[in-house]
């Protein structure tokens, strides 16, 4: 069953922008995002609600077009630009070469069709296969994703499955046409923790066996830690840090990433370390903050950071693939993270970075506003 994963770039997104014109102004949901994904690799995209991670993914398969979105940039997938291919061609890619699974597996399956017929339908759109052959294959797929007794289950309705089993059905449906890329949008968020782990293990196994690439979208760093080769952290429609998993967790470069890491409990970190929530709320995407979009919530912001807009760039010459968009210099960041990692407060981290005296205190009003 093991498929040799072909090497080379499968997907390359360049300067992707998605704007939604609204009554109150243009929402810059995705604001110049670029990344690449190799065949058979897993990319984790992490960010808060409203950071543009889901919109960005839906845009890949052309599903934001229906909502009046204005899209620009390039999405090269397997040699074609998905933003310029015809609607029909994109439809043939969708569900066939790129499949997607969603957050809530109950509402994502049609309640009035049997799960088998929903899987069969997915197959029969894209390939000529008889109904009975497709049904046999649907049972194989259900078995592949770990659903016991597929012969009986294939004729049941979604409401007869538990949450985890429904997500397995969604995965089986997504795999129906052996996609080259699976986009998983918060696939475990609606599930119990133990079931979450099972689903992640399943996705990892399938990726290995079928050689498909995965984009895993989540707000939970813990989820991507288990399965992603590379992680991109999104904030306010942009990628603020991107690195291989090991480096992102080991030597994170962006204060927002520090915030994410320090706001989740770990078992192997130093004992007694206080969890530090990131203050404030995600910014408006219509009128994003000036300069570095993160500066109103950043404990390490300097006066100049409210005017200079940082670019995503290599932050360490020894790790050219580790990118971050932060205005602090490398030494300051290393010192601050070292202090935070050993359980220090942001105040101590500022001192360690030598910016304690010049740091601008975050005004309350700006946090609330």
């Amino acid at each position: 069953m093991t498929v040799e994963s072909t090497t080379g770039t499968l997907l390359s997104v360049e300067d992707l922008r998605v704007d939604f014109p609204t009554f109150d102004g243009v929402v810059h949901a995705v604001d110049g995002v670029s990344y690449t994904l190799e065949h058979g690799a897993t990319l984790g995209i992490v960010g808060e609600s409203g950071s543009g991670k889901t919109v960005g993914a839906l845009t890949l398969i052309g599903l934001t077009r229906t909502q009046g979105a204005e899209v620009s940039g390039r999405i090269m997938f397997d040699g074609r630009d998905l933003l310029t291919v015809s609607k029909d061609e994109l439809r043939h890619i969708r569900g066939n070469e790129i499949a997607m699974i969603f957050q809530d597996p109950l509402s994502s399956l049609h309640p009035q069709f049997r799960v088998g017929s929903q899987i069969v339908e997915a197959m029969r759109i894209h390939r000529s296969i008889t109904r009975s052959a497709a049904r046999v294959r649907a049972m194989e797929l259900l078995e592949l994703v770990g659903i016991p007794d597929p012969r009986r289950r294939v004729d049941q309705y979604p409401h007869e499955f538990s949450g985890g089993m429904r997500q397995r059905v969604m995965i089986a449906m997504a795999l129906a046409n052996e996609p080259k890329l699976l986009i998983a949008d918060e696939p475990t968020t609606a599930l119990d923790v133990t079931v979450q782990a099972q689903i992640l293990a399943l996705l990892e196994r399938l990726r290995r066996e079928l050689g498909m690439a995965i984009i895993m979208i989540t707000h939970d760093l813990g989820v991507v830690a288990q399965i992603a080769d590379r992680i991109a952290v999104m904030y306010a429609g942009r990628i603020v840090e991107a690195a291989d998993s090991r480096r992102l967790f080991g030597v994170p470069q962006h204060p927002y990433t520090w915030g994410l890491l320090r706001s989740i409990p770990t078992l192997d970190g130093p004992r007694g370390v206080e969890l530090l929530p990131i203050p404030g709320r995600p910014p408006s995407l219509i009128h994003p903050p000036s300069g570095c979009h993160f500066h109103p919530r950043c404990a390490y912001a300097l006066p100049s950071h409210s005017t200079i807009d940082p670019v995503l760039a290599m932050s360490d010459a020894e790790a050219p693939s580790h990118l971050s968009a932060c205005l602090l210099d490398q030494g300051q960041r290393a010192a601050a993270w070292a202090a935070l990692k050993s359980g220090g407060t942001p105040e101590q981290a500022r001192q360690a970075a030598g910016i304690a005296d010049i740091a601008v205190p975050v005004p309350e009003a700006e946090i609330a506003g």
Partner: protein
Amino acid sequence: MTGYIIRRLLWGVLLLFLVIAVTFLIFYLLPSVNPAILRAGRNGSPKVIAEISKDLGLNHPIYVQFWNYIKEIIFHGNFGYSYYYNDPVGGLIANRLPATLSLTVGAAALWVLIGIPVGIISAIKRRTFFDRAAMGAALVFVSAPVFWLGLIALYLFANDIGQFKIFPGSGSYVGLTVNPLKWFESLLLPWMVLSATSTAIYARLVRGSLLQVMGEDYIRTARAKGLPERTVILKHGMRSAMGPLVTVLGLDIASLLGGAILTEGVFDIPGIGRLNIDAIGHGDVTIVQGTVLVASIFIIIANIIVDIAYAFLDPRVRYE
């Protein structure tokens, strides 16, 4: 499922019994005309009236009269005799059923065939000119009472009094078996008038429920599968939007089968509704009782059919 159907049927029978009792009580307690006087004619002497009262059993206590009525219905299928026509009510209603059936089925076909597609297109092309025009027209037709619309239609299009003599006018109804072409022609105008309001209601209903359904996550899944938009809307969308539609359709058809009183009145179609209006005019209580009963039977049956259809449409509905 079988158990459920049987239970529903038993309920229906009980309900029917209650309807019979209530209509009987209403007409017993509030007699508009003493049937004996009606039968005796203009110059009936008190003696004749008393004799007729005795013949009709009007001197018995109410429970005896009710028992006699029920007994006749259940054991003989006899809904009583019309005081006016001196014929069995059951037969009178049966004679009028074809006209009402013709009117109802044709109108229902019209409003389903026009209302549903208009609703679907309005939902897909929301906020376009088509949508606004269709919903504007729907508002007009929803607000137009059928008797007014009927009179306007006759005034405009009837071939006797109309400004544009296009369709046969009032009183032109011919039975289907007598002359199918004339039957069809004579019903064109009534069909359009009777279906106008329902077409508007169905268009709005379909638009509303389809719009709601199209925002569901499983519609996004259907698109993500790569289904053509047509299939997404007509298969995945409409499947869910069908539920409320089936309910309303069943009850609408049933209530019209009990007599489309206004339309039959305006176009002088000899249906159950027309029979009912005339009977009310004549104080012919047994006919009114009979038509109410028949209408109730249709409604009760339609309810049962709708409930069963629901179970087939939506597997989440379990009747155990």
